[in-house]
């Protein structure tokens, strides 16, 4: 019976990490639904971006209030993980504050965890107020109704509770230090030292009960939260790093070249090409490349990773000229729709072993044409994203599908494109008149 807590702890830990691993494998499998893409270029620049944008949070602080609060929560999350390491060792071996042998270093560690915990608490409360009291416009958009709105608040509650439990645990521990030999006298407690007097006069047994409950609830909370990630928008705490690595490293104005089109255009322009040539043996049966994207399988793996990384902060949408002027387009919704569709396809694969057509697709069933055609390709969304997501690339791929596979461009655009084809300008002017401006006064 003596080892019951240790065994219980070990089972919880294994179950928590096991289920999380299972789900992450599903995320990876789902991302692989997308087309392979070569991102082996610009290594140095990519690592620089990871350092600057992901680790350094450089894009977060473009908006100072949420940026600084986010840095509190982010640094808190990273640093307090050291504490979690201690909790795990203690839990498995039944020790208490195993790292306390570090002496003064341990004091500094605990003190900084406490200060960070308070800062996280402050940050999370400010976030909650911005969402629910201040009701910032970007948190109340059309796509933020129902689950996305609740999801965001659940995450904040989780973090509040975890921090309160952590500080409560330390406050009770501080009372027990010197009373109970199991509780080693170690650590500095600048924050919980202020809460600790609340526990004055409580019996040793009560204090132990408080300390143990807080300790267990804290670690269970962390494991639950870890497993909540997969179901929420909060995966960015892990995926932000690879996502920034795979982010765009060429000028934002450079849109990707469609190789399959290049080959055909070259053939068209080659005076020596035989128009009646039979296709090469191996090409005869091959299905021609589909142009653009109508569903998630047509997107690249990076675009699907983008969708899983999106934490729905809405900075993209709040800078989008189309959205700002009341159009249906919201770059955040493009990412949310993409993820919803990936997960639908993923479930389909889990159930059937492979994807069985379900009569649905990303286009029309999720993303509307009206949204796609409202984009000015201004790159404001790409610039705004703190984790290098590129909603514009998905919009462009879907436009390509609409135009090249379905000839479904808005009529005025068809007129402009016909003009370009016939007379080399989007307007109906004669190419021979191109230099006329020179003769006009």
């Amino acid at each position: 019976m003596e080892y019951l807590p240790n065994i219980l702890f070990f089972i919880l830990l294994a179950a928590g990490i096991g289920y999380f691993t299972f789900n992450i494998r599903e995320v990876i499998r789902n991302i692989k639904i997308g087309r392979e893409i070569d991102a082996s270029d610009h290594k140095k620049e990519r690592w620089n971006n990871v350092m600057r944008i992901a680790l350094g949070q450089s894009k977060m602080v473009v908006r100072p209030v949420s940026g600084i609060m986010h840095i509190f929560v982010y640094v808190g999350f990273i640093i307090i993980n050291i504490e979690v390491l201690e909790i795990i060792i203690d839990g498995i071996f039944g020790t208490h504050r195993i790292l306390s042998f570090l002496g003064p270093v341990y004091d500094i560690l605990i003190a900084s965890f406490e200060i960070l915990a308070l800062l996280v608490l402050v940050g999370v409360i400010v976030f909650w107020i911005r969402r629910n009291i201040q009701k910032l416009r970007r948190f109340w958009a059309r796509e933020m109704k129902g689950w996305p709105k609740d999801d965001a608040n659940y995450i904040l509650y989780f973090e509040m509770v975890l921090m309160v439990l952590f500080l409560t645990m330390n406050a009770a521990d501080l009372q027990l230090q010197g009373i109970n030999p199991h509780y080693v006298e170690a650590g500095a407690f600048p924050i919980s030292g202020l809460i600790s007097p609340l526990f004055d006069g409580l019996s040793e047994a009560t204090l132990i009960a408080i300390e143990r409950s807080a300790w267990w609830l804290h670690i269970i909370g962390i494991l639950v939260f870890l497993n909540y990630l997969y179901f929420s928008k909060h995966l960015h705490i892990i995926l932000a790093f690879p996502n920034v690595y795979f982010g765009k490293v060429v000028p934002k104005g450079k849109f990707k070249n469609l190789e399959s089109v290049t080959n055909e255009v070259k053939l068209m322009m080659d005076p020596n090409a035989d128009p009646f040539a039979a296709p090469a043996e191996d090409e005869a049966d091959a299905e021609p490349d589909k142009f653009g994207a109508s569903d998630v399988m047509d997107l690249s793996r990076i675009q699907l990773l983008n969708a899983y990384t999106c934490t729905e902060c809405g900075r993209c949408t709040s800078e989008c000229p189309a959205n700002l002027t009341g159009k249906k387009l919201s770059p955040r919704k493009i990412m949310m729709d993409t993820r919803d569709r990936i997960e639908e396809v993923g479930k389909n694969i889990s159930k059937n072993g492979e994807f069985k057509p379900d009569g649905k697709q990303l286009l029309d069933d999720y993303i509307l044409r009206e949204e796609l055609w409202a984009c000015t390709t201004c790159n404001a969304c790409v610039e705004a994203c703190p984790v290098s997501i590129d909603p514009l690339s998905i919009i462009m791929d879907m436009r390509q599908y609409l135009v090249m596979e379905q000839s479904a461009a808005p009529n005025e655009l068809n007129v402009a494109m016909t003009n370009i084809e016939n007379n080399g300008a989007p307007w109906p002017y004669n190419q021979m008149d191109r230099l006329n401006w020179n003769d006009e006064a």
Partner: protein
Amino acid sequence: MSEPIKVPTMAEYMAEGKKPEVLFWVGCSGSFDDRAKKITKAFVKLLHNAKVDFAVLGTEESCTGDPAKRAGNEFLFQMQAMTNIEVLNGYEIKKIVTACPHCFNTIKNEYPELGGNYDIVHHTQFLKSLLDEGRLKVEGGKFKGKKITFHDPCYLGRANGEYEAPRDLLRKLEVELVEMRRCKSRGLCCGAGGAQMFKEPEEGQKDVNIERTEEALETQPSVIAAACPFCNTMMTDGVKGKEKENDVAVMDVAEMIANAEDL
């Protein structure tokens, strides 16, 4: 008025066995749009004034394909691009300048993969270099002390990271440069990019150019400076929509310089 400036074409240069220092890529707007033609002429005056040896393609120029690509028509884009590249490579063009950020972006970023490698600059960058080399003189003149706000074209700014060249030129004009709330990397689009120039906007509460014009007017400028023919049109329409056309002008940076010098 001074003598009309002779604008040579590449064909003429070729016939004479000459090569220009730079090719001026005029673009469709600059060639056909009545408002944008004025920018073209102003820029030509500046080139002439700085004794730049330049030529144009004239009737051999064709749409870069930018609106086609951004509308999703990669076929048409690549047809345009490859045709243009054949012409440019045929003339062994090395250096290009254009007054249109869309042409600039397309030739700079999207032509190399199709075999077109040129040193292309936007006209504000080119003017800036002429200034630095002492070939072009820009001094206060007409706009000295006037309140001017600069609207960043998306395809010059965010798309290619050039925010300072046009601003440097404006500073040379000794204007009082006032920034809009959203500027530089966070500048708001005029609403014309991504082939929107050629279609009606989707249903919404407001047109993008009105939103941007309102923001520009908040700075109470005497001139809204632009550096893109599309932005110019959108902002001009916006100013008219707000019935401010008698108080606020929309001008290209090149026009302002030419105007300040009374060229």
